[in-house]
């Protein structure tokens, strides 16, 4: 009886194991069958937020010099307000309203619209240009993405995607190569190229944390590859997703 049972159990276990093996064999094939667009959309749904309030630290490194700036940022899908809180820049504010970027200097009590060639400058001397923070979120509307391979990055398997600007679309970077974590769908590295093929910037995610059901990059480094020995570290100290932000937060009146 015991032997029969054991035989039955063995068969049952063998069946389960067989199914598991099949699932395990099929699973990677299923995920690798994801299209580039699906991967980007999974990443976007993970990384882009409806609303969020975050305390952020920015460390600008130029040779051996390190300048630390702290800020609080309020963001929804269209707008963002950044208020600097470190003593030197306290009260300096940036407001992104749709396609416009405004800056407020507390000392001069002056409101400046950042446009044209000013957008190419580093934000507060960092490796992030104003243009970088103005980028549209919907990358799939601007770029045609191709899955060009899979690579290990810091011990994690990544999809490697290449995005090329769609014809007649206004984009800052003609080409971008992204490394997206295969399991957590978080961008771990992004290379941004000029139309000439010159690598302009590299952004590397150095720490990812889980917030309930989403993985979110909390530490990243941006390097301007046209300049030697400079980089900017961005550290999210705390973040509250889906926070309630009053609509008047993103008004010019509130900026003053």
């Amino acid at each position, binding site marked *: 009886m015991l032997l029969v049972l054991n035989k039955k159990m063995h068969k049952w276990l063998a069946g389960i194991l067989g199914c598991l093996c099949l699932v395990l064999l099929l699973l990677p094939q299923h995920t690798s069958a994801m299209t580039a667009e699906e991967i980007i959309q999974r990443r976007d749904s993970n990384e882009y937020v409806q609303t969020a309030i975050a305390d952020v630290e920015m460390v600008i490194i130029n040779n051996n010099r390190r300048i630390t700036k702290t800020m609080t940022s309020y963001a929804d899908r269209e707008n963002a307000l950044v208020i600097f809180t470190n003593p030197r820049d306290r009260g300096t504010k940036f407001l992104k309203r749709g396609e416009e970027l405004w800056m407020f200097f507390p000392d001069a009590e002056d409101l400046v619209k950042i446009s*044209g*060639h000013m957008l*190419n*400058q580093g934000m507060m001397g960092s490796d992030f240009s104003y243009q970088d923070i103005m980028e549209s979120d919907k990358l799939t509307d601007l770029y045609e993405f191709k899955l060009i391979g899979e690579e290990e990055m810091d011990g994690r398997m990544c999809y490697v995607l290449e995005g090329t*600007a769609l014809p*007649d*679309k*206004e*984009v*800052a*970077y*003609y080409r971008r190569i992204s490394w997206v974590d295969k399991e957590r769908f978080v961008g771990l590295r992004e290379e941004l190229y*000029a*139309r*000439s093929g*010159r690598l*302009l910037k590299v952004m590397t995610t150095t720490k990812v944390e889980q917030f309930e059901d989403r993985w979110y990059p909390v530490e990243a480094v941006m390097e301007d590859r*046209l*300049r*030697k*020995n400079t980089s900017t570290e961005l550290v999210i100290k705390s973040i509250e997703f889906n926070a309630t932000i009053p609509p008047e937060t993103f008004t010019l009146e509130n900026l003053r």
Partner: protein
Amino acid sequence: MFLTKLAFKNLARHRTRTLAVGLIIAFAVFFYIMYDSLMAGMNEMSYEAIIDYETGHLQIAASAYWEEEEKLPLDHLIPLDLLRMTSLAEVQGYQGSSAELSFQARLNNGINELPVVGRGVVPEELMSVFPLSDKFVEGKMFALGEHKVVMGKRLADLLDLDIGDFVTLLVRDKHSTFNTIEAEVSGLVHTINPNVNNFVVYVPLDIAQEALAVGDAVSKVVVRLERKEQAPLASAQLEDKLRAVAADLAVYKWDDVDAISFSRYAAAENRIILGIILLIAGIAIINTVILAALERMREIGTMKAMGLEVREIVYLFVMESTGIGLLGGLIGVVLGALEVWYMVRHGIDFAALVQLDMTSFGVPVVGRIYGKWNPNAFITVFAFAVAVSFLSSILPGYWAAAKDPIQAIQHR
């Protein structure tokens, strides 16, 4: 006649006072002449610096582009084909023309970067319009198709660049997409125009057009004439020619540009400063005449006691004061003429004098600043000095002459 002689005798008798007051007037006259000459010279030089290195005598551009020229947009450009259909050389006084594609860029040496103005040019055309050929301090001009750039020596020094070094120009093309121009530094120039020295990077036109994705288009065409006075006529002729080819193209004269308008505004400001100098000089003269009247109160009392009438005493005062005005004015004019002669001939290098970069104070030219002869200034300031001396002595003269002789003699 007796009183006139007496007046001049008085001047000689009180020679220290005469000389002191005369020198105050002379200083005011001298300072006015020098300032006027310097400002006129600086104005002329700044016009030339702008015409010679930025605007030429005429500029052809789309009117929509001109309105936004400060932003150096890549819209509203002129297709070169259109211009080839226009015979620019037939315009009166034509010497040369240069097609330019201007753009915003960041000049990068691999360590630092600076915002600059890129100018895509055809080298031969550029040299025919702007006198750059003898302004090269190092290296030489590039040829079309070469990945080379020419820039101001000062800009190169700021980024520690030398001939043969490689730079990257980061630009945004017509679709706002980042692009780069990798190029070797082939030449360094130094001109009297600080904008060219500090901010301009010349790039071969075809390389710039490719990098900016603008096809065969340029921002504007700069035309050089034999003389700047020919600009109004040549402009009208050119507009007639262009009207047949493209209605949206317009011709802008050298004095239509903002920098020239600003210079004129600055010149108007200088007139105000000159007016203030004259006012101060006038007050100094009046003050001195009043003091002289007070000082000579006892003498006036004596003259009255001896039978001189009020009218005669006033006449004496006016003659003396006018004499001082004439003397001071003459000394000032002679000294001013010597100074202007020196400034016209040798110029003044303010930067070396004060060890400061004068362009940071808004002086629109670098190097020596030369003066300019302005006969009107000599006549105006001399006449002013004499007139103020004459008029300012009437009232104090009356005031002193109206005093009772006994009171005047006892005046302390």
